[in-house]
């Protein structure tokens, strides 16, 4: 069973950390660091779960989430949003746009793993 997670994030050190944690737990982690082409990437190889940073170069994570939710193919795809800005406004915006979960940076690794297991059913 290919448990694939797509991490859309632009901070190299954060990509490395999250990839390490999830890989160790048995997930196949794909990464993508550009906002503009992120939706195409999701459509090309739909994962079990998307971890989406809010601030990306090229296109904001909120925009990407909105488009994913408008497309029937990705409407129900679990999306976990990460943001470093940590304001309540961002959380509300993310949930209203249909994010499955919202997590503020910095996060605990255990929490990330728990959420990924919850959302991706495994």
């Amino acid at each position, binding site marked *: 069973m290919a448990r694939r997670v797509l991490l859309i994030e632009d901070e190299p050190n954060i990509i*490395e*950390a999250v990839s390490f*944690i999830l890989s160790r737990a048995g997930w196949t982690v794909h990464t993508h660091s550009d906002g503009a082409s992120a939706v195409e990437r999701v459509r090309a190889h739909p994962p079990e779960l998307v971890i989406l940073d809010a601030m990306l170069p090229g296109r904001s994570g909120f925009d990407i989430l909105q488009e994913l939710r408008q497309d029937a193919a990705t409407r129900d795809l679990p999306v976990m949003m990460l943001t470093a800005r940590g304001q309540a406004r961002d959380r509300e915006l993310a949930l209203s746009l249909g994010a499955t979960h919202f997590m503020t940076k*910095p996060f605990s690794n255990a929490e990330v793993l728990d959420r990924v297991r919850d959302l991706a059913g495994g």
Partner: protein
Amino acid sequence: MLGFNGLIGIALVYVVFLFGVAFAAERRAATGRDGWLRSPWTYTLSLSIYCTAWTFYGAVGYAARSGLEYLTIYLGPSLVMLGWWWLLRKLVRVGRAQRITSIADLISSRYGKSTLLGVIVTLLAVVGVTPYIALQLQSIAQSLEVFARPGAGGSPDGGAVALWSAAGLALFTILFGTRNLDANERHHGIVMAIAVEAVVKLGALLAIGVFVVWELGGGPAEMLARIDASPIAAWEQSGGRWIGFTLLSAAALLCLPRMFQVLVVENADEAHLGTASWAFPLYLLLMSLFVVPIAVMGLERLPTGNPDMFVLTLPLSEGRDGLAAWAFLGGFSSAASMVMVATIALATMVSNHIVVPLWLRARVPGAVMSGDVRAVVLTARRVSIIGVLGFGYLYFRLSGGGTALAAIGLVAFVGVVQVLPALLGGLFWRGATRSGAAAGLVIGFAVWLWTMFLPSVGGGGAISAQVLAEGPFGLEWLRPQALLGTGGLDPVLHAALWSLALNAGAFVAVSLMSFPGPVERLQGAQFVGVFDQSGGPGPWSRGGADAETLLVMAQRILGATEAQAIFARAARVQGRPGALPEVTPDFIRGLERELAGSVGAATAHAMIGQLTGGVSVTVEELIAVADETAQIVEYSGRLEQKSAELERTALALRDANAQLTALSVQKDGFLSQVSHELRTPMTSIRAFAEILREGGLKEEERHRFASIIGDEAARLTRLLDDLLDLSVLEAGQGRLDWRRVELGKVIDRALAAALVEPEALRLVRDRAAEAVEIETDPDRLAQVFINLVTNARKYCDAPRPELRIEWRPDLNAVDFIDNGSGIPAEQGRVIFEKFSRLGDPHKSGGAGLGLAICREIMTRLGGAIRHLPGSGGTTFRVELPRADMALAIAQPASG
């Protein structure tokens, strides 16, 4: 038998006597003993010039031809004097307050000192009155002919008599009429001579009357019976003509230039009107008392004689030479006084409204001194007197002298009465405008010319019988004596009705449609509301203004300090001691320019003109206007200031609000940015820290993760340093360490600190050029340079990156130019903003505060940093302050 030569002799003696009277009166007036000259009786008698030779001889002729209708000529003025004294009082008050010199001046003055109106009224008066003057000359010639008929030596050449009479009257008028330039000064000599003549002519008529009634007629009772039996009693009187002529003569009293002269200009005291209002009608009553008996007796005894000459021919036919000579002197007096006053009035108008304005326009600029003007005005007036009399004489010769006397008088009446609408409107209606007055006058003048003057002029008339009967070019509705088919009316009434109706109509209509100018409005208010003002003439006894009065006015308009400065400056230029200059034309011109700056050119011109001309507005009134102006100017200035202040405040508030809003948005954005920049490295640090803690890692993994933690911690520290640095710079806190240092050394330090390897970025410098001393804080300037060098190393995208550092002595600036592709223009604007990181953030290793810090540093150092777009690679220019400015900035900071 009194011969022609004898009569000439008597006339000459009489004239010499009048000279004496006039001369004595002038002397008394000059020495101040003019008490009795200024009596209401003199004033009343001077009004008798209303009774010209036309009334003296012509009334009898009129009665003989048309019965009692002659009474209308006396009735009109009597009604005005008795019933319209309030109108006369206003006229006299206005005339005195405004220093009016003639009826043309009155109309011109009332309608904003209009030159055009002055010319129109002058022309109207000259055209209307000249035949009247001719009439007087004719009466003198005619009366002399009567004496010559029996033929006792001397040939009566009517033309020669008229010429000599005209010349003599011209001489008399010039001698006593132009002694004083200022028309406001009354002509005491002439007025006195007129008063004497008034007594002579009244006495003559009364004497003839008594002679006719008691000596020829056998007493009053028998005389009445004769009158009843005469054709005069049987005359059918036309009601229309009675009313029309009465109104016409009433209006003429107000409008005739000579009447205006004695009534208004020569008036010494307004109270004299009270006496005149009953005494003058009484005089007229006495003048008309014996007219009918003389006419009846003349028709009875001399049925073939000229009725106009009955006053002379009746006593002559009875051999009463003395009485006849007296009557002749009476007639001569009537003619002479009328000619003299009418000539003075006309000459004043012609010289003031036509000759002097033309001369002023034609003169060489700057060549005028006040003395010159005086001479010019006097000459103009004298020439005008000769011209008017010459014109009258010419008219007398051309007209052939045949027309009945009364007819000419009526033509003149209707002509001058055209001024009435503009006159009454000017006195009682503020809405009357110059355009309205001009339109009314021109139309009335034209209609009068067409319907009355032209058909009457020169015996047969200047208009052919055909035109009279069929109209010009066969246009019946334009027939001179039947306009629009209103034939069957008396020609005089027809002309008077049409001309006055069209005149008044045009006057009212155009006045309603046009707007008065500022001077016009001012004058209109002065005229209509003359009784509302303090009244009486101002302290100006003569025209012209002294410096003190001008200063008072200037102070009220310009303010005390400025006005005094102007006057003092002018006095200094003139080399006069004290603060008041001599009032020279140059000074007045300068002052007018100054005033024009405050109240506008037109008002300044009018004010100066009126002050120095001294003719139209009294000084108190002018100062009142100036006060008002100053108040309005001050008040509106204050209002303007207030509203400008309010506007500035509102603007400042709006700005402040916008700034606060922007600040709050900025602060929001800034905090959000800071939060992001802090949380991002912390995320890595926390994640790897947890991974390390959990253990079970390979050695190289552990090492790598630990070094990532170290990097991110350093990044955090840099960020915090930058934030603190920026906040210190933005708050203007933190000392600058100003020193004198060589530019090259600062660059050396920056390059050393930036740790640039030559393969990463090749540097191009000109060390010789950099050997300049600058005044700056070397550490801070180096910080800016480090930022720029670091940026070039990070962002220059050329295959072989290169940075040129160039000192620009002409601009006092250091340019940093790399050979990359540069920054897009739209981003060039935002790169100095906080967190405006371009491209890959990890390449920079900073939080995007570097250029923001550079900008703050350069501002504090008194210089600037800019991005120069479109200059090949990325170019930054660091501008240093000039040495002196740098020192100025440095002083308070270091000292």
